[in-house]
């Protein structure tokens, strides 16, 4: 697999690590436990596009949001995590 890092260009996926699907927005500090449980544990596992958190650990160390299709591994989009909304 290849991932196009916004800083480093197209690189082999072995330079990156994946943290998993992007979680739902992080609850407010005083949110009820149920909201935190959803945030920590619940993830969709769709057949199709997912957004995932990847870090270019052996490159610029930037955290990225990668939109990947679970059927084909096609990467539709790579964004900087630091610009992402909905966190």
């Amino acid at each position, binding site marked *: 697999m290849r991932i196009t890092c916004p800083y480093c260009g197209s690189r082999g996926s072995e330079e990156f690590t994946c943290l998993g699907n992007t979680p739902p927005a*992080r609850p407010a500090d005083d949110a009820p436990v149920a909201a935190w449980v959803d945030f920590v544990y619940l993830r969709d596992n769709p057949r199709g596009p997912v957004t995932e958190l990847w870090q270019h650990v052996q490159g610029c160390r930037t955290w990225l949001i990668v939109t990947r299709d679970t059927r084909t591994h096609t990467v539709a989009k790579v964004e900087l995590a*630091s610009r992402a909304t909905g966190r």
Partner: protein
Amino acid sequence: MTGARRLPEGGRIDRGTSLAFTFDGKPLQGHPGDTLASALLANGVTVVGRSFKYHRPRGLVGFGVEEPNALVTLGPGARTLANTQATMVELHQGLDARSQNRWPSLAFDVMAINGWASRFLAAGFYYKTFMWPPEAWTAFYEKVIRRAAGLGRASHEPDPDHYAKAHAFADILVVGAGPAGLMAALVAGRAGARVILVDEMPALGGRLRHTARAIDGSATTLWLEATLQELESLPNVRLLPRTSVFGAYDHGIMAAVERVSDHLPAETRGALPRQRYWQIQAKATILATGAIERGIALAGNDLPGVMLASAARAYLHEHAVVGGQRPVVFTTNPSGYVTALELMRAGVDVQAVVDPGPRVDNETVVALHEAGVQLYWHSTIEQAKGRGRVQGVVMADDVGGRREIACDQLLLSGGWNPTLHLTAHQGFRPHWDTKLQAFVPPADVGDITVVGAASGRFELENCLADGLNDAVALCRKLGFSAKTPTLPKLQENVPYTTTACFAVENASGGKAFVDLQNDVTVADLELAVREGYKSVEHAKRYTTHGMATDQGKTTGVVGHGVLAEILKRPVGEIGTTGYRPPYTAVAIGALAHHHRGQGFAPVRRTPLHDVQAKHGAVFFETGLWHRARYFPEAGEDMAAASRREVEAIRSTVGIADTTPLGKIELMGPDAQAFIERLYCNGFSTLKPGRARYGLMLREDGMVMDDGTVWCFAEGHFMITTTTANAAAVMSHIEFYHQYYWRELDVAYASVSEQWAGVAIAGPRSRELLQKLVDKPDLSDTAFPFMAVAEGRVGKVVCRIARISFSGERAFEIYVPAGYAADLYDRLMAEGAPLGIVPYGLEAMGTMRIEKGHVAGPELDGRTTPADLGLDRMQSRKKPHIGHALRDREGLLDPARPVLVGLKVVNAKHRLRAGAHLVPRGAEPIQSNDQGHVTSIAFSPSEGRYIALALLARGTDRHGQEVDAVFPLKKERVTVEVCAPCFVDPKGARLRG
């Protein structure tokens, strides 16, 4: 006497040079340009192995990677290479090849009795025969089966060869250097694209090398030479012969293995790797992998002397070798006719060409007729007969008559299968083409362009046209201005037509093989269907059809065709089984390439490695680090040395390397606020000049890591992490800052490798350190417990903290990495009068267990601060990572295992980490399990083994006795539960 021999002229071999080789110890001769297979045929050797299950004698069937029978073992000793296709082995001086699966000899094989017992070895034999009792599997069945069935044996020695890996990038990767691939590479190369042209054979040209046809009015060889010369002259084209692309992966990545020096005698390989693993990343791939001919299942089709028509043609043109003098050809398509004609022209007396289909007149047929070859249409070969080799065939003609034709070879062509594996690796399902009687790749195969025979366009003129046109289109798509050259001119164009014929029925009762390598017959497939295995995937696994090392290259589709006939359904409807990488066998060594030994796990040494070695350190591996474990004096073992080290530290002073701890520097106005959120305990009150222990949680409330936070100035910190988690904590910090808390004005960097240093521990540590440290003043009042400072050792900057892992008065000091060894040496020299000892991880571990400090075994990702007795540290006043979920009901359960100390009741007993805790005398079963031992040490202070453990309701059980059981070793040791601190519980020594 077999009819296999070398012709007096022709072939691409160097007749002037002879190469000596051995087969089963027998000395034979060949020439440069030969493969082991062609050299064996040239020497009249027609039996090359015994079959897998029935131990039947087998001969060469194919020419290249499709060969199912000729598997040999090469090389002596550690270089033993089993299950190698003789067709893919280039002959070299001294080659030593052995046949397989025979005992005592290839000619007489005792296990051939399996042939007589074959009705007991039918499909599903393994599943049916050895069902019960289960114990018999390991005791009996497995041993017997392994001896009877099986191919070559691997060496048990380490691989003495080395392997390389290369990454390559290209605009266009062309797989296969036959007519289509060569044409495509030429067009793309001329257009200026970066091209990689790969072919699995030693010489490029593919089936262009196996034809007598003329291109542009002259011999194919001339066109081939001119084309290769031009390709070699183009600097943007890389040619990789002897290279097999074995897998297609995501985003256009192709994996290939290049046989760099397999064709050279081991002693002349020099520094060359044996093979090179390539990862090729191209913008587009042109698949010109050609097609593989398939056989026909008929009785006796495994006799030596039954060969694919294309293989006979290849041996003729490439090596001037024929497998027989009087062959009969049985063909469904032009391949057999062309083979017959070319063999005739080489002086071979072709007995007949038999075709199940209708008469199609073309130039080849006319030429054969004129040459006097008997031609039969609407006819089949029902049976090949002979003892040990083909001596005749039984033909059924178009009016139901049967006759025997004497011959010494049967050449088969049941049609052609496009080599579409790489498209299927990417999940593109092939579909059945009724006209071609073959599976072909679908029109859309993503980034791959399939050309020529690989796409089902088998005629040479179409291969050349596809290579040209598709490469032009692709180049233009990629932005290269490709010119369209004129197509080479060909004569004798014969369109490809074929007749469906997978198996021929006969009454002889002889075995008709579908899969030669796995000994699967038509009858086996019939049985599988009768027993309900009607899908191709089920029938394949039940009969093991197509599951041998050749992966059914010649026989897979035959099996599908036979299955379709049995089920009376079209082949296209029953479909094909999946194709998975690798296309051909790949040495594990090539996949591992440099990642073996130290290349697999590089050694990390601290800057203090050599100086510790000088002081007698014994090192051991923890992760990638090589760390000093203990420093034995004469006659000491590890236990004695580390015990002495602990006692010295508790009475005078010792130093240990703490460099591998993770160190991260944080700076900025919001650094403190960031740290406040990263750790569960409070840091808002941490002042410059002070350090504090910190506990990091995950969002789920479990402990992630611990360490110390050093505050040098407002907004300037260094945190330490455990050695094991140094990288993970760094990523964690980057993640939370980049993703969640980007508004915090903080910068951070790993400084783990920039600062190297030691812990100096013991009552006299301050006295020693102050001798070297010019700044700061280390007196108890100026520099109390948990003080930190940036200071100086001579002219060298340093960072010092008064922190302790050992429970003694202690310091950690770091200097820029290059100065650390000097610091260590000077500490040892200045400390000598005080009785300083260097100490290692064993002593460090013992002291932290005596003090009840948690480390890796306790921070296993399943423990909360409360479990570890650190509940009071958690701040309830601030939000931090993990604050929301740490108080979930299950985590507050008083029955959870919590940290306790353990001491063996009998001082002679030992403890083992990982032992489970059960009530005294209770059975070691899961329902009695109350926790486990995490860390053990022999405590010099206690004079016995002690441990840290996680025990259910442990806090309430101090003073009770439980049993630590280790069922794997049948051990049971009674221990007393106590507080997890064995030395100085009030911390008086620590604070001094």
